[in-house]
């Protein structure tokens, strides 16, 4: 009952701020579109680059969106109330990251099929691409949330967050792009997808602890 109330609150807030939350999605589309402009828009070239380009754009878009995860709550004082709740902060944080992903990451995952079209990515492999993003973007959200928790109290924290988090996201990028790349050329993509799944499980179980520790430390001063 409480969990649904928390989810409801976050989703309702997200809906009211939907303009703000659309930023990562728009960013994703623009960045993806930049690559053909910067390179040769020749279809075979685009096709070979497509998995990597889509994945890098998705990675950057998710990270950009993570700064707003705790910022507004920090500024209006509701983050303190979350920390003072007798409920398990790890659960509250898990739900928060999840709803944030629903609002920012999931649209991205769905739009990726459209981006695949732009980059001449073979349609038969789009399922794997979407799957890789579906498994990978939540992991990226959690990693970004760790960075957000550590930088929430900083004024210029938004600039620091990507620097802190990007190295940690390399495995997700490698396996995600590999899955999409293999599927595009007809090779089996199960192995990297399984790795992504394993990382998702790790992120779900361990990241909340790092995030709550980071929040408590950030709010101590």
């Amino acid at each position: 009952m409480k969990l649904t109330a928390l989810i409801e609150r976050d989703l309702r807030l997200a809906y009211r701020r939907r303009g703000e939350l659309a930023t990562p999605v728009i960013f994703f589309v623009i960045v993806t579109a930049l690559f053909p402009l910067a390179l040769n828009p020749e279809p075979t070239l685009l096709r070979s680059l497509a998995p990597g380009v889509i994945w890098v754009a998705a990675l950057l878009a998710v990270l950009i969106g993570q700064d707003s995860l705790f910022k507004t709550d920090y500024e209006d004082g509701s983050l303190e109330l979350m920390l003072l709740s007798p409920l398990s902060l790890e659960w509250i944080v898990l739900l928060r990251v999840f709803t944030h992903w629903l609002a920012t990451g999931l649209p991205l995952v769905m739009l990726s099929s459209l981006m695949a079209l732009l980059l001449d990515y073979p349609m038969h492999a789009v399922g794997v691409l979407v799957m890789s993003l579906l498994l990978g973007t939540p992991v990226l959200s959690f990693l970004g949330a760790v960075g957000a928790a550590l930088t929430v109290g900083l004024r210029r924290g938004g600039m620091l967050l990507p620097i802190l988090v990007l190295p940690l996201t390399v495995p997700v990028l490698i396996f995600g792009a590999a899955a999409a790349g293999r599927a595009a050329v007809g090779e089996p993509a199960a192995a990297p997808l399984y790795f992504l799944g394993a990382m998702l499980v790790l992120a779900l179980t361990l990241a909340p602890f790092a995030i709550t520790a980071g929040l408590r430390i950030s709010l101590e001063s």
Partner: protein
Amino acid sequence: MIEPMEFPSVLSVDNLSVWRGERCLCRELNFRVVTGEALQVQGHNGAGKTTLIRVLTGLGRADEGEVRWRGEPLRRNDAEYRASLAYLGHSNGVKLGLSPRENLAAASALLATPIANNVDATLERVGLRAHADMPCGMLSMGQRRRTALARLLLAHVHLWFLDEPLASLDMAGVTLLTEMLKAHLSGGGIAVFATHQLLDLAPFPVKNVVLGTSA
């Protein structure tokens, strides 16, 4: 009614020292507050009132000394302690994108044992019945503060920690808060608040702590 304890509830502070960077905000502070008492934390701007209150809630940490609730020192992750307190900070903790009603529903979700479904009555009590469904971003500062005050009434807790609760409140608001505090204290609660303006909570005893007087 807060459930009665076999022994009186005591919030005590032993030899508490809190530093902020280079400055010592309080050195070897000692006090006790028991059921039905209020503690007024006073001091000039920047003396450390907010920091002290945050240390008492467990949000901040003391450099030396201990805070004890019912004789037990506060533990790192004290869910039980957090279930016994309500906090009103400088910033209201009110989401501007939600209405007062929605804000209270969200705050309720974070409580251990909220009083069931009397959001309307609570809003009535703080004088926000008419504006219950407008987004708080469209309300005045005083009305947002009243929304935050309403949050205090969502559950029966022993401890109220209020940081400058009178800020933004008009005369009627001050009266409202005074009444709320008296009701809380008579029900067996403890209140600790930082304020520039002294409150008259007679007949309840109000102790005083003044920060920033020693080096």
